[in-house]
């Protein structure tokens, strides 16, 4: 594929900008001539949507007489349901004293007194926020989902770590699972597993399983081949080598897999509420749909607290020296905590007493209203500039251009950036979207994503470069980035909603603050990864700091920056779809209304599929750019 481009640029001696410029002029001309023709306007009653809605009706009617459902899917549903009930029963039986005591004890064992106290305070916070019941429901759901993810994910991961062939088979599946926006799972799951806690647990599990498999596989594959060889040469069987060499050596990395699985589960469990899973998600979604930050905030805080507590507990376990023995005092304290908690169960009420809660709904709503009124000029200014300067022109361009012109542009862009395979994938995705009847909404979502990604990349690059060049700035920024990355995606909608109300811009703002941290980190690491010898050589040649940045550091960090763009796109897309709840409209809104209104189910389902297609398209285009290191085929060391 590159041979054509190379011969074109070196054979004819055209200036470098000639081809892109010519292509741009061609597209502009085509747009002017064909503008308004062959657009695919949205139709709520499209036959594709109705067919899916009908399918759902049929499945709901035959859920209990079709053998596939009767003997297979319903049993899975029942099994997961039973497990969830078990978790819930145990947690309810422990009551708040029991849960607090046991969590405190576990955390103390995992990470000493700091983590122990953090867990005690965190669990109490659920009660103080008045969200005890929902928090426990969430905990139960997360528990089931994580347990299932690990039971399935760790063996698969170990297998993938041991066998390159399995790894090659599993990796593309995981890739697609990870770029799929969270919403997209829900509709098909509702179709097969109905709605409620079991369906929610399964949705959460699907979302949380990729890191379990990926990191376990990595952990096992990283085990020193010398150690494995030594074990084999002593005559160990494969199982003996697995249990005595691979698993012990992979232990601490595998604990990270557990950590990541829990974090993913926590961010999905909220969304699972859309298919009627119980828990904190209910409050958040209620707050989002009514645009009331006061309702959302306590639930958001509770989710963050849960995330921080579980994160610290698992990270502390992962970082622990496997040879260190638990100290006797720690054991004693943990035992005492657990015993005290359990002993208090009969004494204290199982549900958190109402009179020690604080009600924040009204004050928070007031504060938001105050912010709305007083910062109106600034927030509206930002919002309007973005809307009129970027969003509206781009959207009208994409929706008024003929579909084939957009597809052609995507094809050529993908070809140039990532090669022929990515181009064909992108084209196939766009054609499928056109056939599904959601072209116009997809173009609107694409507009939002494009603008959000641009803003994210600009901010991310600036902060990343600043951090790479000023160690002091980096030292301040790092902990903030760390904290930002442990927070579930949903939380980012809170400030966005508070500042901007329900508009298209809200989703953009939320996705920018959601996606900036990893972008900053990748850019910073990329620039810092430039070998010091090269930097020194450039300085010795008399480069100014600016020349060093533009001619050496940024070009050499190209891979990291492209990876950052890729990450940014995937994260932004996920957030923009969630933004459908707060005024982003388009695909996200279709998905949400598909859950809330039975007659719109088909449209929601199809919109979910279109989101995935859009995600795959964007991912392939940028990922290819990352893999291809230069116009010529060569390996980078």
């Amino acid at each position, binding site marked *: 594929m590159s041979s054509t481009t190379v011969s074109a640029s070196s054979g004819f001696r055209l200036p470098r900008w000639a081809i892109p410029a010519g292509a741009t002029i061609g597209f502009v001309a085509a747009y002017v001539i064909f503008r308004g023709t062959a657009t695919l306007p949205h139709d709520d009653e499209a036959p594709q949507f109705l067919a899916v809605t009908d399918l759902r009706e049929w499945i709901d009617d035959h859920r209990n007489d079709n053998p596939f459902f009767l003997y297979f899917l319903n049993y899975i549903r029942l099994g997961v349901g039973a497990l969830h009930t078990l978790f819930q029963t145990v947690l309810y039986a422990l009551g708040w004293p029991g849960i607090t005591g046991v969590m405190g004890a576990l955390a103390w064992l995992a990470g000493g007194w700091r983590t122990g106290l953090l867990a005690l305070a965190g669990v109490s916070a659920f009660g103080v926020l008045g969200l005890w019941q929902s928090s426990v429901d969430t905990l139960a759901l997360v528990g089931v989902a994580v347990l299932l993810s690990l039971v399935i994910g760790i063996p698969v991961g170990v297998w993938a770590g041991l066998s390159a062939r399995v790894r090659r088979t599993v990796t593309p599946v995981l890739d697609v699972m990870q770029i799929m926006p969270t919403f997209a799972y829900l509709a098909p799951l509702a179709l097969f597993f109905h709605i409620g806690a079991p369906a929610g647990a399964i949705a959460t599990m699907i979302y949380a399983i990729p890191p379990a498999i990926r990191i376990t596989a990595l952990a096992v594959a990283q085990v020193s081949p010398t150690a494995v060889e030594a074990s084999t040469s002593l005559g160990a069987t494969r199982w003996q080598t697995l249990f005595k060499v691979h698993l012990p050596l992979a232990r601490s990395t595998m604990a990270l897999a557990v950590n990541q699985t829990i974090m993913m589960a926590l961010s999905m469990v909220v969304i699972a509420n859309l298919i009627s899973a119980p828990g904190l998600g209910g409050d958040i979604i209620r707050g989002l749909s009514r645009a009331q930050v006061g309702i959302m905030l306590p639930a958001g805080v509770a989710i963050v607290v849960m995330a921080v507590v579980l994160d610290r507990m698992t990270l502390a376990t992962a970082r622990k020296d496997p040879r260190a023995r638990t100290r006797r005092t720690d054991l004693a304290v943990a035992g005492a905590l657990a015993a005290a908690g359990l002993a208090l169960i009969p004494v204290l009420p199982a549900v958190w007493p109402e009179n020690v809660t604080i009600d924040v709904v009204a004050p928070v709503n007031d504060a938001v209203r105050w912010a709305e009124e007083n910062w109106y000029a600034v927030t509206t200014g930002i919002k309007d500039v973005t809307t009129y300067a970027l969003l509206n022109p781009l959207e009208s361009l994409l929706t008024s251009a003929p579909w084939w012109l957009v597809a052609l542009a995507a094809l050529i862009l993908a070809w140039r950036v990532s090669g022929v395979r990515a181009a064909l994938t992108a084209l196939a995705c766009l054609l499928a979207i056109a056939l599904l009847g959601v072209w116009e909404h997809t173009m609107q979502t694409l507009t939002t994503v494009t603008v959000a990604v641009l803003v994210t990349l600009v901010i991310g690059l600036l902060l990343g470069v600043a951090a790479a060049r000023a160690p002091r700035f980096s030292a301040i920024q790092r902990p903030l980035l760390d904290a930002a990355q442990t927070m579930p995606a949903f939380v980012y909608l809170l400030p966005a909603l508070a500042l901007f109300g329900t508009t298209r811009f809200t989703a953009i703002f939320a996705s920018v603050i959601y996606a900036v941290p990893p972008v900053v980190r990748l850019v910073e690491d990329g620039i810092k990864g430039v*070998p010091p*010898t090269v930097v020194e*050589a450039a300085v*010795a040649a*008399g480069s*100014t700091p600016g020349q060093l940045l533009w*001619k050496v550091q940024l070009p050499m960090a190209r891979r990291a920056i492209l990876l950052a763009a890729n990450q940014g796109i995937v994260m932004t897309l996920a957030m923009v779809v969630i933004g459908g709840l707060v005024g982003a409209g388009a695909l996200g809104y279709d998905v949400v209304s598909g859950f809330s209104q039975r007659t719109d189910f088909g449209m929601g389902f199809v919109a979910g599929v279109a989101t995935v297609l859009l995600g795959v398209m964007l991912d392939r285009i940028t990922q290819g750019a990352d893999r291809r290191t230069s116009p*010529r085929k060569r390996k980078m060391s």
Partner: protein
Amino acid sequence: MGDSPDSAAITVEGLWKIFGSGAQKVLAGDDRNLDPVALREKTGCTAAVRDVSFEVRPGEVFVVMGLSGSGKSTLVRCLTRLIEPSAGEVRIDGEDVRAASPARLREIRRHQVSMVFQHFGLLPHRKVIDNVAYGLEIQGVPRQERHARAAEILSLVGLDGYAGSFPDQLSGGMQQRVGLARALAVDPQVMLFDEPFSALDPLIRRDMQAEVIRLHREVGKTMVFITHDLSEALKLGERIAIMRAGAIVQLGTAEELVGAPADDYVADFVRDVPRSHVLTLRWICRAPEPGDPLDGPELPAATPVKDAVAVASASSLPIKVVADGELAGVVDRDDLLAFLAGQDPHSVRANA
């Protein structure tokens, strides 16, 4: 050495580099005289360069030799302030480098002093020609002009036909030729080499040393060459400074180092050097004794001892050693055999 400071290409005087937070305090007090290990224990600072002074003459190849950790790489970086010296004076072409503003310092780095690095420091995302032209590019030389110059330099270092390659497509030796070409392209007065060949295979290294000698003959740059390889130092260096623990222990020609090591450390270093290859007749000749026939063959004083062996075996008469047209002394077969057998030439010289 005989030259006045103004005619020297590089003058270094009382140069110190101490790493660590209390560097200035150490310099101000008596701690500066502690040896590096004791200093580190007492203050946590590391003295990398300690009170180093030398001059490099224009067009000279000046070699700094020492083991790893002796401070030689730090020293060469202090010359253009890639590492900021803690104290002392550095003058390049008479200009005080330590007083230069950042902009002036960049000008010095761009036009006067260029550097070749141990690990090449090439830009992997640029073609060879653009790597070579990098120094000109950042000076603002137009594309066509700098490419023409870079192509010229590439053929000078024997890399014709590789202009369009990327650095990682070349072997280590060729990559270092690119590094060399990049340093040459800006036509500097001084070239600094920081162990440029130590990452290369021995055979390639020999080629590259020959290349540097050839280039020095052709372009006549002042060169400061850092190495930890004694044979490299002896081969390239007109004068050699041996560094140990941040200080120069001896500075002299190869002959002076091998013939009269300043201390046991240097003596240990040069022990395995084949002395007959390094020392010249000047070193072993003696004043003619009465009765020595003075009609034997004549050889210049700068002839290495090994080259005199063939002459001595062809004629039984003592060899006349001539310097500047005058008789410097004589060497007969016995003197040569005694020297080759490893007896101290000083005892021979003592007779003179």
